[in-house]
């Protein structure tokens, strides 16, 4: 090589290095990813909680033992529980005595001592196999000949309402994630266009020396992929920390109404890396689309 050859042996990047021009975009994208991740964590938590609500409802039956005259209602409840426990599909039975029953009705009747002769129904909580529950009417048939009356509540009337509420929570959270993703894509596409306008001299020079469109779009695509990845990682890690803090605060508060609780499963661990990758891909795709259409519009 000539003694006068360039000292630098490195191949210089064709796009000028980021001199702070991309920082506002980085901040906006990171904030959008942060919000989208929080929504995703919320959606994951809501999904998990909604599953729990419906599982609990379908896996439990409540049997009320109505106290008869001159009968020991607590003994009737224990006898009924023992009989029910032998039914196929029943996994557990708990007979609640008068004290437990009084505690359950205390929100309506107060905590003062109730008259002894007040007919407080006894409850038998029956845990059933959700996949293979006892046949419909089996409990009523089993206890039909007993000298006390019963009411069986299989929670069917609540299940539809809870299912609807759970679905509303799930779809609301998913919709929020989707909206924030679209907003992030729009912001990045706008920024890519602005970036191209600011660096049009580079695109033009490359075009005039014979660069293919895909060569030029590839440069911008790569630049925005890594920008999206960095924004995505920053936003998603911040969101993960915020979600952990929220979950911790919710658990520590013991369910105080003003502290939101967030139950996260192991699957929530996948959200931050997935969000960063999606942010990078959206940024790359948005940049590619914006640059490609601008090149076509300017050089027909």
């Amino acid at each position, binding site marked *: 090589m000539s003694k*006068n050859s360039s000292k630098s042996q490195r191949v210089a990047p064709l796009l000028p290095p980021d001199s702070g021009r991309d920082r506002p975009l980085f901040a906006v994208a990171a904030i959008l990813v942060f919000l989208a991740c929080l929504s995703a964590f919320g959606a994951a938590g809501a999904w998990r909680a909604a599953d729990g609500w419906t599982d609990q409802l379908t896996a439990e039956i409540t049997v009320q033992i109505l106290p008869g005259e001159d009968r020991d209602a607590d003994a009737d409840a224990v006898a009924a529980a023992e009989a029910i426990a032998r039914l196929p599909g029943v996994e557990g039975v708990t007979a609640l005595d008068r004290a437990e029953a009084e505690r359950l009705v205390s929100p309506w009747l107060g905590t003062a001592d109730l008259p002894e002769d007040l007919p407080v129904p006894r409850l038998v909580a029956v845990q059933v196999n959700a996949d293979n529950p006892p046949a419909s009417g089996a409990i009523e048939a089993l206890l039909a000949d007993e000298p006390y009356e019963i009411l069986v509540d299989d929670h069917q009337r609540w299940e539809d309402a809870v299912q609807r509420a759970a679905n509303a929570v799930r779809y609301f959270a998913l919709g929020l994630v989707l909206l924030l993703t679209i907003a992030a894509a729009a912001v990045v596409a706008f920024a890519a266009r602005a970036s191209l306008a600011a660096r049009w001299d580079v695109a033009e020079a490359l075009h*005039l020396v014979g*660069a293919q469109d895909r060569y030029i779009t590839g440069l911008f695509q790569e630049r925005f992929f890594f920008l999206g990845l960095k924004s995505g990682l920053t936003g998603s890690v911040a969101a993960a920390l915020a979600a952990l803090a929220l979950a911790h605060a919710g658990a520590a508060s013991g369910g105080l109404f003003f502290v939101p609780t967030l139950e996260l499963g192991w699957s929530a661990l996948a959200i931050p890396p997935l969000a960063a990758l999606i942010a990078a891909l959206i940024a790359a795709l948005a940049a590619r689309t914006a640059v490609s259409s601008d090149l076509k519009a300017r050089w027909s």
Partner: protein
Amino acid sequence: MSSHPNDPAPSAPAFETAVRFDSVGMRYGRGPEVLSDLSFELPSGSFHFLTGPSGAGKSSLLRLIYRAERPSRGLINLFGRDASLLPREALPALRRRIGVVFQDFRLLDHLTVFDNVALPLRVAGQARSSYAEDVAELLTWVGLGERMDAFPSTLSGGEQQRAAIARAVISKPDLLIADEPTGNVDPEMARRLLRLFVELNRLGATILMATHDLTLVNSLKAPVLELSEGRLVGQARVA
């Protein structure tokens, strides 16, 4: 006709006509025609000057040749192909055959002189090791051997112009078009650059040089296309 070391010499072209204009007109947007009824041809391996006063349409004519603009009427034939109908996918291949020296240089500020000059080779997919020596040699030839690691913003106008010329010729284009390539250099450097163009012409490149410099035009026995108000008013060879 006596031979002169600076005179362009005929070569053995692979095609007969590098550029052919037939009744070409051009307007920007819905404005008036800036070029009207242009008909001429540049045979392969020829050397032509393009002259005319400011605003005559010299730069617009050059933009038509490197397909920065489309004609509003007429036909433009480049290297035997109708360039007016060329799809945009075919433009990069066409542009690699054309070297352009822009009046405003269009060097990239974030690249060194070396990297600016190497740009056409890099875009064509060549490895740095394969072109480093050629780029260094050419830069030395145009007097920028000591400035190849400098950035364009630190160069004088004349140095930027020489870097722009080096970028246009580094890939040995079939057609070299230059818009006032000696406008910012001293007479000695102007003669030196002209020798570079003549040398490329001897190697087979077709040259079209737009200039105001009549001394430069008179120093070569090359045909002249003269533009005035968007029309050709004098030419050595009409199609």
